[in-house]
């Protein structure tokens, strides 16, 4: 096993990995499942089922959103979602049919990836990710790093179901035909590494997939950082800031996503994911996608009491859940039931610069913060706000308790919105310009001028007509 170098920046956080010792607890299907019609980066999805329709597991409810159990669509209505803002969104509400699924003919199952979104943080569509590197995949990176404390679902997955993961990886290899395939995992997850290496031996794939050990620094598992580390290990240039991993023929896929691929191959649908549950007793739960958080905690006997609240995700990337009716979806990796700690009062920024060395992206959070407060979009872009992965290292480092990441997140979404309207405006302007040109041309053509058309005008009109004829026929 080879070791990757430590990332620059980042933080060595405590390695708190709850609930990996015991095999995952399967949570029974609830009465209803909820599927919010929200895609990657909050894009609204269009439902392709109607109320009253019978659906089977794996059937698409909307592009990029598959049903995880057999049932009847009760309604498409507003429902709570697991979103930091606590917003509601139009959702497909599915009454689960608890009768046994008709056995799926696994042999006829095709690798239909349309319904899978990445199980990492961003929830990017897997099929889109694969299509960007199809036919020219140089390297497939399976991301098993999970460096935020309090989250251990991927580790648990590797410890207890490495075989299925391997199967999924193999399917991805068959599909992508990469020149090289590596699995990146923190060096201190010895149990998971052993378990996966055993699976490799059993599956006779030892040469095919290499296991790379990462220094367990937060956030070395972030896609861009991981890709750059692997590139460095391969002796290649790191990604320039304008390139995406796909542009260099690299696919970086979460280990849980690989597991979902295996689920599709075996049962025709990826219906479940593992979720770390930190409550009075920590465990890993196998949850059917769309299950309300309330149900999961109820089954585990861990519903919040008193001042306790439920947090989705880890202490850095996560957020407090506003409504327990919100469903567990692919991007939900941990649930924590605890009494929230009162936040320290925020002091003014004293420009100490402690946030600079910890930023894994090499940004200057202090300056970004000042620019964000001044709402200086140009300055923010000049200082690379779009590169911020909102990992939260600067929040921890800040001696004045400023929630820098919150400011950056809202600045990013504001800039994205702005860019979107700008793009729409330029598009409209271009259309208008073309229209005006055409009208001007038409006028020239229809209204005869006082003097005869010049020779060049005639010849250029003729050549235009010729070109048009050639194009059309």
């Amino acid at each position, binding site marked *: 096993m080879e070791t990757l170098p430590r990332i*620059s*920046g980042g*933080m*060595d*956080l*405590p390695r*708190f990995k*709850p609930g990996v010792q015991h095999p995952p607890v399967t949570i029974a299907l609830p009465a209803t499942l909820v599927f919010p019609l929200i895609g990657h980066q909050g894009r609204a999805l269009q439902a392709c089922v109607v109320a009253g329709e019978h659906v089977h597991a794996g059937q698409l409810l909307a592009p990029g959103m598959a049903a995880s159990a057999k049932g009847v669509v009760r309604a498409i209505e507003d429902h709570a979602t697991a979103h930091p803002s606590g917003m509601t969104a139009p959702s497909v509400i599915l009454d689960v049919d608890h009768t046994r699924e008709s056995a799926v003919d696994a042999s006829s199952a095709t690798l239909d990836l349309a319904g899978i979104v990445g199980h990492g943080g961003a929830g990017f569509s897997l099929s889109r990710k694969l299509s960007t590197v199809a036919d020219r995949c140089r390297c497939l990176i399976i991301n098993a790093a999970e460096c935020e*404390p*309090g*989250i251990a679902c991927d580790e648990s997955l590797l410890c207890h179901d490495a075989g299925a993961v391997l199967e999924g990886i193999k399917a991805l290899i068959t599909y992508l035909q990469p020149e090289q395939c590596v699995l990146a995992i923190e060096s201190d997850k010895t149990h998971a590494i052993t378990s996966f290496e055993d699976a490799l031996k059993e599956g006779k794939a030892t040469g095919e997939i290499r296991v790379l050990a990462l220094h367990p620094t937060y956030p070395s598992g972030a896609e861009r*950082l991981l890709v*750059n580390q692997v590139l460095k290990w391969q002796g290649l240039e*790191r990604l320039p800031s304008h390139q995406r991993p796909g542009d260099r023929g690299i696919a970086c896929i979460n280990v849980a996503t690989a597991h979902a691929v295996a689920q599709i191959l075996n049962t025709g649908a990826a219906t479940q994911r593992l979720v770390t549950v*930190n*409550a*009075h*007793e*920590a465990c890993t739960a196998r949850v059917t996608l769309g299950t309300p958080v309330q149900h999961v905690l109820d089954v585990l006997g861990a519903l919040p009491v008193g001042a306790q609240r439920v*947090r989705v995700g*880890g*202490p*850095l990337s*996560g957020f407090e859940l506003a409504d327990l009716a919100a469903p567990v979806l692919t991007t939900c990796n*941990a649930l*924590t*039931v*605890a*009494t*929230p*700690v009162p936040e*320290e*009062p925020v*002091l*003014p*920024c*004293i*420009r*100490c*610069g*402690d946030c*600079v*060395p910890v930023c894994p*992206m*090499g*940004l*200057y959070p*202090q*300056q970004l913060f000042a620019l964000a407060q001044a709402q200086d979009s140009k300055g923010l872009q*000049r*200082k*690379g706000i779009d*590169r911020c992965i909102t990992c*939260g290292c600067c*929040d*921890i*480092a800040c*001696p*004045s*308790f400023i929630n820098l990441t919150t400011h950056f997140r809202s600045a990013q979404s504001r800039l994205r919105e702005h860019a979107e309207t700008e793009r729409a405006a330029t598009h409209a302007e271009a259309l208008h310009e073309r229209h005006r040109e055409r009208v001007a041309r038409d006028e020239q053509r229809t209204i005869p001028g006082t003097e005869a058309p010049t020779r060049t005008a005639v010849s250029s009109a003729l050549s235009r007509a010729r070109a048009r004829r050639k194009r059309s026929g």
Partner: protein
Amino acid sequence: MSEQHTRRAVDIGLLRQSTGATWRATPVIMRQVILALLPGIVLYAYLIDARVLLGLTIAVIAALLFEAMVMWLRKRPVTSRLGDGSAAVTGVLLALSVPPGLPAWQLIIGCGVAILLAKHVFGGLGHNPFNPAMVAFAVLIVSFPVTMTDWPMTADPVARVALGDPAGTWDAMTSQTPLDRYRAHARITTGDTVFTLSSPGTAWVVIALAWLGGGLWLLWMRVITWHAPVALLVSLGTCHGLATLISPTAMPIGIALLGGATLFGAFFIVTDPVSGAATPRGRLLFGAGVGVLTFLIRQFGSWPEGFAFAVLIMNAAVPLIDRLDRPRVR
């Protein structure tokens, strides 16, 4: 698993503590700065003039009172901001920058200038573009040139011998930091006379070394970073080194680095985060700029010690440095 245990998954405060060696809250930083100054203060009181303790007390009280008054006027919480210690640090730094015998009312005016004009006019902690202690120093030295250059030297044995008063019968001399003394004598004597003090007074050197020690402790505690102090010392040393190569009567490099405000400033003034640059490269540039300007003012200016003015000029350049320094995004 207890609730305490589960908290580890939600509590960012616990994560902060877990990175304890590198992390501390702003008020703690201020306390550590004062702690780092203590050895130097004790030596100063013992070797030079015990009145510095009185000055420190007055300056700290005045600074805190002014801070409280402004916070009250600005309708902000008074007590919480006094607790952050920044006003006390300003008072301490100012009291250590001025001669120990400075009349109390002048020191109080200095504190008022530092807290009111230099700090709160711009928005209080974190918003002041200029170092408050240095603004106050500049105002004082411009306004009270006589008392502000009245440095005691009776306790400085090397200086006494060198100036022909081994018995210590003189009470005080004006303008007598080693640097001033050097300037004064370099003008009236030629290079090879022993009388010109080829080394600064021992007491001042000892105190300068105490500042150095406190600064190194702050570095080790990661309260400050090495960039600005090292850049300052290197650039100042280089400038003085070049000057001695060109002209033998120029100030020797040893006096330049150990005398005057150099070491005190290198570790306690240019490391002020608020008015200095905030990025590593920016801090290198900032420190180097202060060094070059200090040299230029010492060598060609009319003031005995150009450090405060150099810092103020570079403070004004910080927004430019911030703007020029683009992050190398990974």
